[in-house]
């Protein structure tokens, strides 16, 4: 009996092998993952990991869309964990399936299992008699092999030295459909799905989050030809029509007849840090003893040459700002409520819909289809529930609900505002002796299923006695939320970090790419630069002097080499360069970034260099694509983006109110991958976010000698920083 392997958790939770792989179609291996495609290329990478173990070519693989009755349940597709969870589970499942088929092949061929080779889905055994090799394919064997068995854990996946497909830049499986508009005549995106008899729904939203509907006149909308239903329950208001443009027109007409009662309950957009400081909070010591002092001024420098410094950093509310507003489809019959969603947590969404509508879980069947890139918790879950409620009024007919642009900007959750204060003491030798840090802001996760209370927008609008449950964080050991990367990865003797998770949630907030890590790393890495400058030590050397992990040091040295960084390098007037580093979640991938900027009227990023170590690289081009995309998105966040609101309403309604990066803003980008086939593969979707923003801030300082600590680093905040520095 072989020694049992340690199985990945999501495979242990879904032990039946038939849930992962099937061979129904001749020549095709169907893989089923519990992770979903968000544009990050994950299904291609997971397919590579599975195909590698099965001994099939990537062209023989199809990845079936996630569907709750069949697919393995692997919780949510979040936190850059899909390779580590979904990929590993697929790897171990496929290794075992290959072993089962190899045993069947060996038996039929009359040879020992160890002598069987697998290539392109064919098991073969060469022998010395001069006859052609004996061979049998998965599809020839599949009738006699049952995968209706549980994973045993007796089979080890391949050693990395045997990899051929893992480590190659296999072409994205979803590429062709997305550049031609359809895949074999089928819908590519959820938005494109067309079901027989499908109707179109649109919602009418309150003008502000806590507004209540006082009155509405449904007659005009119902009078429009092609309008079938107006659905009105308290402040939940929607319309169903035969044609999409009729539904839009009816929703506009309906909105024009509504009277709402609004409340002034939003904070002052211009003073968010002060607002956060004043809020009640749940406090958690994340490192050291928390903060033992009352006032940072009480830190006593040990000698004349030591110094202390205190800085405050902030980020505004950010929108996920998907290009395609969220869309959902639902259909009720006597047997089921079927929904189609681009949610990142299909099983949790199914459970949440069942909970709110008081249905048995298995009555709700949820299917995933690709959506527009979400980068976190956008409106995907909410719109699916909207569709389910509307479809309940026209049983037997599918209803497609498409959110409009202003709905996505106003009603999908935001990445929350944060403030972060750091004080440090640096010794005469240039070593940090003490680091005291405090963080203020909401927790970051309000995905459905994280609280006992209903977690979908439509539920709160339908029943006004319900309040949205407060956001939660994961434990820091699992990556946290507001606390993500709050504790510096650097080594110093006194590292005190205290999190104030503020309780009131004035603006609905939830997970946005990297969660709290964006501001936590921006602040820590900006502050490291401030300390290095004050200590008159090259910021690269200063960082390396505080690191022990050789992989961290190597990733920094790699980007330094890539960018040709030299201490005190002379640049053109108004230009600057800056560096930053982080290990994502302190347990994930390593990323070091150098930005080269020019500052005239605004910050123009000319070139970004990044080195990334994510262990064993599954698909190099996929990793580079994620890093390039992460860098550009964060440049957009840190230079341009802030949600706008007055004391009552969110005033960001269109792209005019929320500018993002354009083609002409985009810098040159060079990514260096440090591949470590012997190491665990680490997800890579979010690792460059924090370091990129900090590298830009450090480059801006290098160019202007002005420290911008409030995001975004737009003209308004740069001028504020110049004025603050001069006073």
């Amino acid at each position, binding site marked *: 009996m072989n020694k049992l392997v340690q199985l990945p958790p999501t495979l242990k939770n879904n032990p039946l092998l038939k849930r992962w792989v099937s061979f129904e179609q001749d020549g095709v291996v169907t893989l089923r993952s519990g992770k979903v495609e968000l*544009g990050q290329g994950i299904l291609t990478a997971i397919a590579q990991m599975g195909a590698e173990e099965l001994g099939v070519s990537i062209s023989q693989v199809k990845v079936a869309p996630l569907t709750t009755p069949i697919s393995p349940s692997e919780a949510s597709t979040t936190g850059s964990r899909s390779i580590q969870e979904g990929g590993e589970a697929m790897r171990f499942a496929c290794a075992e399936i290959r072993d089962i088929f190899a045993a069947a092949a060996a038996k039929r061929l009359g040879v020992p299992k160890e002598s069987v080779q697998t290539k392109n889905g064919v098991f073969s055994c060469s022998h010395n008699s001069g006859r052609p090799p004996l061979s049998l394919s998965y599809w020839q064997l599949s009738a006699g092999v049952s995968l209706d068995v549980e994973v045993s854990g007796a089979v080890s996946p391949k050693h990395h030295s045997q990899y051929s497909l893992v480590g190659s830049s296999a072409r994205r499986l979803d590429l062709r459909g997305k*550049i031609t508009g359809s895949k074999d005549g089928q819908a590519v995106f959820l938005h494109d799905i067309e079901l027989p008899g499908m109707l179109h729904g649109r919602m009418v939203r309150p003008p502000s989050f806590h507004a209540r509907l006082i009155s509405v006149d449904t007659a005009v909308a119902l009078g429009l030809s092609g309008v079938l239903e107006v659905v009105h329950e308290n402040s939940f208001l929607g319309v169903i029509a035969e044609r*999409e443009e009729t539904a839009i027109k009816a929703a506009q007409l309906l909105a024009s007849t509504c009277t709402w009662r609004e409340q002034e309950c939003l904070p002052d957009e211009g003073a968010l840090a002060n607002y956060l400081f004043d809020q009640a909070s749940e406090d958690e010591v994340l490192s050291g003893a928390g903060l033992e002092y009352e006032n940072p001024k009480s830190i006593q420098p040990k000698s004349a040459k030591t110094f202390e410094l205190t800085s405050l950093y902030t980020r505004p509310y950010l929108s996920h700002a998907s*290009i395609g507003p969220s869309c959902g489809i639902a259909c009720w019959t006597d047997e089921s409520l079927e929904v189609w969603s681009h949610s990142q947590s299909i099983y949790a969404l199914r459970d949440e819909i069942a909970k709110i509508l008081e249905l048995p879980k298995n009555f709700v069947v949820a299917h995933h289809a690709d959506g527009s890139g979400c980068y976190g918790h956008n409106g995907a879950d909410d719109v699916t529930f909207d569709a389910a409620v509307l479809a309940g009024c026209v049983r037997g007919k599918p209803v497609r609900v498409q959110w409009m642009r202003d709905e996505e900007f106003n009603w999908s959750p935001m990445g929350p505002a944060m403030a972060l204060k750091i004080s440090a003491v640096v010794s005469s030798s240039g070593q940090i002796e003490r680091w005291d840090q405090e963080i203020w802001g909401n927790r970051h996760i309000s995905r459905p299923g994280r609280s006992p209370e209903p977690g979908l927008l439509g539920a709160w609008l339908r029943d006004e006695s319900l309040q949205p449950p407060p956001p939660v964080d994961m434990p820091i050991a699992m990556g946290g939320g507001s606390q993500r990367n709050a504790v510096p990865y650097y080594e110093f003797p006194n590292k005190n970090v205290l999190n104030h998770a503020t309780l009131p949630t004035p603006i609905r907030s939830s997970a946005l790419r990297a969660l709290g890590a964006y501001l936590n790393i921006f602040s820590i890495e900006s502050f490291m630069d401030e300390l290095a400058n004050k200590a008159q030590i090259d910021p690269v050397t200063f960082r390396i002097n505080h690191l022990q992990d050789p992989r961290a040091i190597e990733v920094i040295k790699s980007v330094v080499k890539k960018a040709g960084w030299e201490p005190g390098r002379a640049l053109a007037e108004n230009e600057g360069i800056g560096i930053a580093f982080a290990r994502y979640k302190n347990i994930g991938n390593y990323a070091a970034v150098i930005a080269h900027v020019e500052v005239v009227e605004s910050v123009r990023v000319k070139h970004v260099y990044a080195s990334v170590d994510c262990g064993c690289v599954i698909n190099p081009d996929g990793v580079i694509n994620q890093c390039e995309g992460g860098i*550009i998105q964060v440049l957009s966040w840190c230079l341009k983006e802030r949600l706008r609101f007055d004391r009552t309403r969110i005033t960001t309604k269109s792209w005019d109110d929320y500018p993002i990066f354009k*083609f002409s803003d985009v810098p040159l980008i060079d990514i260096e991958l440090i591949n470590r086939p012997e190491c665990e593969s680490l997800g890579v979707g979010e690792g460059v976010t924090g370091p990129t923003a900090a590298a830009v801030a450090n480059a801006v300082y290098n160019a202007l000698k002005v420290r911008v600590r409030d995001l975004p680093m737009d003209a308004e905040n740069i001028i504020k920083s110049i004025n603050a520095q001069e006073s």
Partner: protein
Amino acid sequence: MNQCDYTVRVEENTPLLYILRNDLKLKGTKFGCGLGQCGACNVLIDGRAVNSCSTPVWDCPGKAIQTIEGLPAAGELLSALQIAFEEEQAIQCGYCVSGILISAQGLLSVNPNPSDEEIFAALDANLCRCGTHVRFLRAIKKVTSQRVKST
């Protein structure tokens, strides 16, 4: 439309986008904002890239409309631009890609060898949230450099 004639019976102010997607079942053209601000719904009308979300259908009869589905020439699987997008793996989520391909095609058909500034001018009205810009630019330049080589 993509070299074919269609007759539809709809209210004349209906945006072209909904006719394409729901009547003609050409789902490659995407709804993004409905305000003409993001380019996801771009189609070529008489060779020029326009927002189909803000083009009423009454403005379309008699004009040549091309969508992403009509980019490949007859008998071809993919257009030169689509081949370059595939080779450069120029997608992340892919939602904006249809509009980007259309804007790039509109540019290249009148200006086969555009400068960077001309490419930016043609594409700045197309928003991409995933940050795939560098790949799109690489793919577009691949087509222009191939053309330069072949002439």
